[in-house]
């Protein structure tokens, strides 16, 4: 079976979610860190740990509600809903934050995990390595298509059967362009290519 794995932030959503959380709850210093991370100047894992630390005292249910309202690309959402068995979200983001958002799409989700008590994050328990998801699905015999834009997508895109750099929200990282098979600039092109790969 062909499996389509999508990065979440900036690929399916029209904006990055961590800066959105930071802005809504008045936490500073996230946006700059996110930009530096996308540009590849701060390693993803380190950046993610630092960003989660800055946001860990926010009520998890309120963050999840907020992210449930984040705008997603409509044609892409329609494709995912129509092929939910074939699609999956692969994100470094925390599963406790993105639950409502992913529910709207109805497909599988692979995310980072945190220990939550009384609606507060106690600690990070697992940070997703996207390439492990690709590897696992390939070993199960699937043909894997990966769609992403950031530095933490590069290794997954390198080992996927096909990889699509998505420049829907911002320019993909240079590392992404150096391994991608395709580049699309809008969701019309992306969805046409996804249909062709079905």
């Amino acid at each position, binding site marked *: 079976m062909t499996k389509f794995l999508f990065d979440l932030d900036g690929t399916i959503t029209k904006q990055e979610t961590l800066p959105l959380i930071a802005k809504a709850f008045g936490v500073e210093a996230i946006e700059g860190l996110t930009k530096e991370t996308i540009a590849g100047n701060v390693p993803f894992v380190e950046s993610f740990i630092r960003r989660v630390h800055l946001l860990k005292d926010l009520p998890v249910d309120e963050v999840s509600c907020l992210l449930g309202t984040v705008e997603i690309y409509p044609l892409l959402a329609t494709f995912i809903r129509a092929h939910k068995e074939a699609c999956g979200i692969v994100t470094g983001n925390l599963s406790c934050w993105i639950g409502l958002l992913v529910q709207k799409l109805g497909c599988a989700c692979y995310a980072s995990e945190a220990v939550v008590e009384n609606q507060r994050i106690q600690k990070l328990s697992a940070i997703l390595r996207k390439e492990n998801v690709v590897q696992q699905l390939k070993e199960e015999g699937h043909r894997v298509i990966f769609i992403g834009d950031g530095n933490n997508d590069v290794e997954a895109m390198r080992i996927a059967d096909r990889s699509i750099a998505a420049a829907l929200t911002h320019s993909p990282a240079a590392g992404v362009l150096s391994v991608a*098979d395709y580049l699309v*600039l809008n969701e019309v092109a992306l969805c046409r290519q996804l249909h062709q790969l079905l």
Partner: protein
Amino acid sequence: MQAVTSVVISCAGIGSRLGLGMTKALIDIHGKSMIQRQLEMFESVEDIRVVVGFGSAKVIEEVRKYRSDAVFVFNHEYFTTKTGYSYYLGARDGNALALEYDGDLLVHPEDMERLLRMEGEWIAYADKASEDAVYVQVDAAGNVLGFSREDGDFEWTGPCCMKKEHVKPLAGNVYSQLEPYLPMKGIKIRAYDIDTYADYQHVLEVVKDW
């Protein structure tokens, strides 16, 4: 045009023989870049696939002005492969038929309209004009029988159109992709490719009348 045809425009090359220091898609022909002229001809085509390699960022920037819905296909091996490989990369995940169009080629727009209405697989060729050409041998009906570096009835310019499963991962030229399927339906068009500076100057003259 058949709804199931993708157009693959190969713009991955270095353009070293031309000597203008830029990939040929970006050279100026009377105020319009090559790729702009090509995209205008393919305005009615839904699936445009631009194969990029050398100078990809500038080609993408130029295409984006006219067709932000194009799919860009990376030929990361552009230094060691030729247009036949770019054709393969562009065709493999596209529609059932893939029209191959070299980024250094200018076809008369009327002839291109005619080609877009053709069905199935075909090869287009032109009167001999280039300095460094590959030739085609044709039969009385204009069908293509063979390619030659030495001599032939016409110059092989492209474009061509093939079923995507016929386009293989070969490192060579597009005509190597076509040879196993000869004879093929042929059609004569007005077309010029730009390999050298002399070709470029010739095209500047010819296009004035288009």
